[in-house]
């Protein structure tokens, strides 16, 4: 059954793969972007050309007014959001001793505060409809820690505590809240790592390679489906068997 889905940061990387996957599954998808309207348009075109339904919706999800306007737009163009994918995320890596306050605040705002605001905005209609799926994209960084990523890891670990708490609050209303925690996935975010780091990352997995955005998206699609109705408050790690 087709639902209305919103993917924050859906124009690139894992978000794009998730948006396309949900579109292919028959859901109407709102593809959120912050700056790359061209990239979001491309995702929307790709979903439509595969026979799906999608719209682009621009919003900086760290801003409360922008989030409200985004939900307004999606509500009037596609209907109330039933599947929310909190995917928008940024990195501002650096050792803690050299990490500026702005790098801390910005990462926490985009990666964690956005999930608070978007989930809150989506819940009203989900509770009424007695059905909802919230999946947030975490990271193995939030589970194991990673040097240079104190801010990013904190935001991703924060998503886990947030999701587990929310799962308990709304479980009785047919709403599940989960986290998918990817390991090393080949995206623009990991392209900056360099060949040596990519090889080391590949070798640290059991599968022996980086993951693809599609491999993360299939896990998200599953948790967003009707079938996953008895799974909530969980962290599904998609990391190819990473041993850090």
């Amino acid at each position, binding site marked *: 059954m087709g639902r209305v889905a919103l993917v924050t940061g859906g124009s690139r990387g894992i978000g794009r793969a998730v948006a396309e996957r949900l579109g292919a599954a028959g859901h109407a998808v709102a593809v959120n972007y912050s700056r790359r309207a061209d990239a979001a348009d491309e995702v929307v075109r790709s979903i439509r050309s595969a026979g799906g339904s999608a719209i682009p919706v621009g919003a900086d999800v760290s801003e409360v007014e922008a989030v409200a306007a985004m939900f307004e737009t999606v509500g009037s163009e596609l209907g109330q959001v039933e599947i929310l994918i909190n995917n928008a995320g940024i990195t501002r890596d650096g050792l803690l001793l050299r990490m500026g306050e702005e790098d801390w605040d910005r990462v926490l705002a985009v990666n964690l505060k956005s999930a608070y605001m978007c989930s809150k905005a989506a819940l*009203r209609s989900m*509770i*009424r409809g007695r059905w909802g799926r919230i999946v947030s994209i975490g990271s193995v960084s939030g589970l194991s820690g990673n040097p240079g990523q104190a801010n990013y890891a904190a935001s991703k670990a924060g998503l886990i505590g947030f999701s587990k708490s929310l799962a308990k*609050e*709304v479980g*009785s*209303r047919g709403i599940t809240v989960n986290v998918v925690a990817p390991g090393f996935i080949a995206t623009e975010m990991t392209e900056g790592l360099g060949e040596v780091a990519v090889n080391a990352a590949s070798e640290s997995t059991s599968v022996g390679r980086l993951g693809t955005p599609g491999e993360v998206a299939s896990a998200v699609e599953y948790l967003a489906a009707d079938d996953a109705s008895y799974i909530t408050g969980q962290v599904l790690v998609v990391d190819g068997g990473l041993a850090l």
Partner: protein
Amino acid sequence: MDRADIESKMTELLVSELGLEKEKINPGASFEEDLEVDSLGVVELLMALEDEFGVKIPDEEAEELLTVGQAIDLVEKKLAG
């Protein structure tokens, strides 16, 4: 809208939104003990009241609601401005 109207609307909402039995609802009924409405259920009722009556109920005031009668009082007060 007088108090009786508010009460009958409130009863309708409790039945339609929270699935309560109409017979159990009266101004003296406590949400938690008599009606077995959990804290999220009270929030649901408040959202429905906001939509139905076009009022805004701040969180601080919402926290003090224990009975149906108190919810009626609150809506009456909000409608009076």
